[in-house]
């Protein structure tokens, strides 16, 4: 008798403990309330703080910074340690950075619109320009990015745009318009891929219709949806990550692609990239310092070190991304076929994607409707 009672009571106790935990977790956070923008005020930082007492934790995409960076930083900046954590996507980084309590992260690499969101949540330390003299290396254009004019809370690391990546030998006509991919010609039937990451799924349709990528108007999003639904039967697949492989294999002939992901330097030399005439976006991956960081002097020193032309040019030379650093780009040898030679002024024709806050659910809904439909 007592045995059965014992086993019945235990789950109840654990459930109660779980509920207590859930309630505790709830009580712990109130900062993410939907009140809106409330950026944090700047801390007092000491320019000559002893960095050897500071340890840095960075979160970044895999392969996005030199493998030797921790070693280099420890030697040059004399910080105690530099630890690297990886995130696969912006959304995963956001999950880490916005979770209740101290994330333990000092410096994060996220795209511009996510930096904007983090800042509006009051999670970022304003950039102290006096601690980052290498900001002078940036192109003037890189200090006027629409999500953060004047680099108040973010420092750009790489930038680029979205366009059509295509097989020069398999297309009957060179693509020039988003319509070439939205309404594929018979020779491209079922040989076209699109990205599903929500804002980029809508981008070609919004641009083809002459709307802003940052629209939150329901009728404009509805028209974009109609266009995307009409396109769906003519697609090979939606693909956010392996569209380059599909092009190289000849499975597809055109793909919506980020410039850095389009394999234009493939040795066969049969892959081209074009920004359609209707325009596109400008995406920027940035570095931000978390308000919760206890190592803010070292964090600034790290960003300053990365903006060093020799360090920063690594990204352009090794991962084929344009860097917004004039002095760094001047050092890079541009390989044949590479898109690295595109001028910043041309890049800035693109419209920077900004965070839409609550309206971003409209794009989630669009993405679900198009892929499930």
């Amino acid at each position, binding site marked *: 008798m007592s*045995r059965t009672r014992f086993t019945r009571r*235990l*789950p109840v106790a*654990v*459930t109660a*403990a*779980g*509920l207590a*935990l*859930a*309630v505790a*977790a*709830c*009580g712990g*956070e*109130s900062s*993410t*309330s*939907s009140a*809106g923008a409330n950026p944090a005020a700047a801390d007092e930082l000491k320019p000559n703080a002893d960095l050897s007492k500071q340890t840095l934790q960075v979160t970044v995409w895999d392969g996005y910074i030199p493998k030797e960076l921790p070693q280099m930083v420890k030697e040059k900046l004399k910080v105690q340690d530099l630890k690297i954590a990886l995130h696969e*996507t912006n*959304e*995963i980084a*956001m*999950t880490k950075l*916005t*979770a209740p309590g101290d994330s333990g992260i000092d410096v994060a690499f996220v795209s511009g619109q996510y930096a904007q*969101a*983090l800042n*509006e*949540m009051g999670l970022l330390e304003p950039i102290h320009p006096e601690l980052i003299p290498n900001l002078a290396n940036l192109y003037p254009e890189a200090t006027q990015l629409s999500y953060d004019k004047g680099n108040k809370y973010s420092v750009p690391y790489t930038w680029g745009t979205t366009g059509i990546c295509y097989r020069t030998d398999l297309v009957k006509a060179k693509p020039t318009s988003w319509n070439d991919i939205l309404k594929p010609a018979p020779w491209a039937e*079922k040989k076209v891929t699109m990205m*599903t*990451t*929500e804002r980029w799924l809508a981008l070609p349709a919004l641009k083809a219709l002459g709307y802003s990528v940052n629209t939150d108007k329901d009728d404009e999003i509805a028209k974009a949806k109609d266009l995307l639904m009409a396109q*769906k039967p003519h*697609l*090979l*697949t*939606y*693909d956010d990550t392996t569209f380059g492989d599909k092009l190289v*294999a*000849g*499975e597809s002939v055109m793909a919506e692609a980020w410039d850095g992901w389009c394999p234009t330097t493939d040795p066969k030399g049969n892959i081209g990239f074009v920004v359609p005439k209707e325009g596109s976006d400008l995406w920027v991956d940035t570095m931000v310092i978390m308000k919760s960081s206890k190592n803010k002097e070292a964090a600034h020193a790290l960003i300053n070190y990365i903006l060093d032309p020799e360090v920063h040019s690594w990204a352009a030379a090794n991962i084929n991304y344009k860097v917004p650093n004039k002095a760094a780009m001047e050092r890079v040898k541009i390989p044949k076929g590479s898109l690295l030679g595109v001028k910043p002024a041309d890049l800035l024709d693109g419209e920077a994607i900004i*965070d839409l*806050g*609550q309206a*971003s*659910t409209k794009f*989630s809904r669009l*993405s*679900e*409707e198009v*892929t*499930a439909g």
Partner: protein
Amino acid sequence: MSRSRGRRLGAFVFLSPGLTYLLVLMLVPLVLVLGTSFFQRGRFGGVVYEFTTENFGRLVDPLYLGVLGDSVRIAVLTTLLALLIGYPTAYLIARLPRKWKTVALVAIVLPFWTNFIIRIYAWIMLLNGPGLVNSGLKLLGLGPYELLYNDGAIVVGLLYSYLPLMVLPLYAAIERLDPQLREASANLGASAFTTFRKVTLPLTVPGVLTGSLFVFVPSFGNFVIPEMLGGSKSIMVGNLIRNQFLKARDWPFGSTLALALIAVLVVLLVAQAWAARRG
């Protein structure tokens, strides 16, 4: 008296690591998921702790019901095909000589030794436009066919991945069957088919149910295969849940969807347990 108490203590000592593990690592997250489903999405993601039942209302949105329906359709089709292929396979293995039984069983489990993603990639290589299957058909003057990036490819991938989970419980059920029952049936004049229908099949129903559940459950919630072989052109409930957490930053709704999935599976498990006891 003291002996029984000692035995009880022993049971407690041996059970407690497993019980603690299960209770803490299953029940607590489940309670957290349940709690999250009653709150709201923050402007930039995260969870706003204001009570709402709106997420449960969204479950009956035709869009999500459609996704749920598609998932059930694909998972049921996969399960039926697995049963159709798995039953004869298990039956034949059970009748092999002992030595060959082991070989056959190892062969069934062998694919599990290779990474799941790599095996799915292999299917892409087989089925895509310039792939092996279409090249072979071309030699015969056929095709090319669209074999990849559609619902058919999803079913092929799921079937390939989870067929062993159907064969193994069926094998166990058929193997356990007393051969004398079949002999008796034959002696009494039943044809082979009648023996199968009236003796073998009813006695292996628990194996059929277990195998079907083992195939249905992971097929129903799968999101990798629809993405890789289906080309994300149709989404299943697993993709929907994954997207709420990793793309849409809507944890509360993702939690609600996860709960709905768990509820469906619990109903199925209870039904299976009930049917197995009756059988």
